[in-house]
């Protein structure tokens, strides 16, 4: 079965915020809540890079681990969802999430913190598929319509990809090869940064075979 993931190609993202708009429009996300954001690194500096960030639907999700009422679940496709009827809006998931994905709508005269809201990978929630109840609480269930998340499908430069992780990896690898680049853009160094020091070379065998 597919493992649903997002992948953002920083070489292609032009910071148009089309993904953010598509998400807000499709899911009618409440005021003050952004399920997706575009983050720019080295903003204003030549060579700046932007990436679109939302819930990464972690395989070992920290939000799921810290939730005191266990309102999170992972679907068969690897999408992390939650039950808003059970959520108590405590905010633990917000502190646990390294991507700042959980959002809390402010409501009422005192800005009361509402139930947690986050990217659902356009997969709705634990309500009848396509129902008014599901849309009101979680947004559109595009996955049940055989579609991928609106943000990825609306991306004009196809920087943001969403879907089966294996297919996405193939698409990205294909792009990198088409760009004429190799290991300098695809690999550990790209994902986690270049090491400060070169790895130590293994000691050359001594001549003479002395022991």
């Amino acid at each position, binding site marked *: *079965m*597919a493992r649903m993931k997002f992948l953002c190609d920083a070489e292609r993202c032009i910071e148009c915020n089309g993904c953010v708009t598509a998400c807000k429009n499709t899911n009618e996300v409440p005021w003050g809540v952004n399920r997706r954001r575009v983050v720019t690194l080295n903003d204003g500096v030549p060579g700046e890079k932007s990436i679109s960030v939302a819930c990464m639907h972690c395989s070992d999700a920290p939000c799921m681990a810290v939730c005191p*009422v*266990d*309102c*999170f*679940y992972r*679907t*068969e*496709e690897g999408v992390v*969802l*939650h*039950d808003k*009827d*059970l959520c108590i809006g405590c905010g633990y998931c917000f502190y646990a999430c390294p991507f700042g994905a959980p959002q809390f709508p402010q409501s009422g005269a005192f800005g009361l913190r509402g139930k947690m809201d986050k990217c659902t990978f356009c*997969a*709705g*929630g*634990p*309500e*009848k*598929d*396509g129902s008014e109840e599901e849309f009101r609480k979680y947004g559109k*269930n595009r*996955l*049940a*319509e*055989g*579609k*991928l998340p609106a943000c*990825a*499908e609306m991306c004009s430069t*196809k920087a943001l*990809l*969403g*879907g*089966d992780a294996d*297919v*996405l990896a*193939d*698409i990205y690898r*294909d*792009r990198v090869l*088409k760009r004429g680049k190799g290991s300098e853009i695809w690999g550990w160094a790209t994902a986690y940064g270049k090491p400060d020091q070169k790895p130590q070379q293994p000691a050359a065998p001594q001549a003479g075979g002395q022991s």
Partner: protein
Amino acid sequence: MRGRLIVVAAAAIAAVGLAGCGEKDQVVVYKQGKYQGKADTKPWDSPEFGGDKAKWEERIKARNLSQNEYRRMGG
């Protein structure tokens, strides 16, 4: 007369006492680490796919692959 009152009082106490037995749990009984919310349906259980998982997977795969514009251009 007094005996009758005792019987009535005993019956009333028993009725009130037994009413407590019908009380439902007001809170969710938590099982640590287990999802406590409502069950969700599978995406292929929607009216559009009618439980046909293969059809759903095929549609999703086609959408997935169409994200590769090199493939769309035939390059």
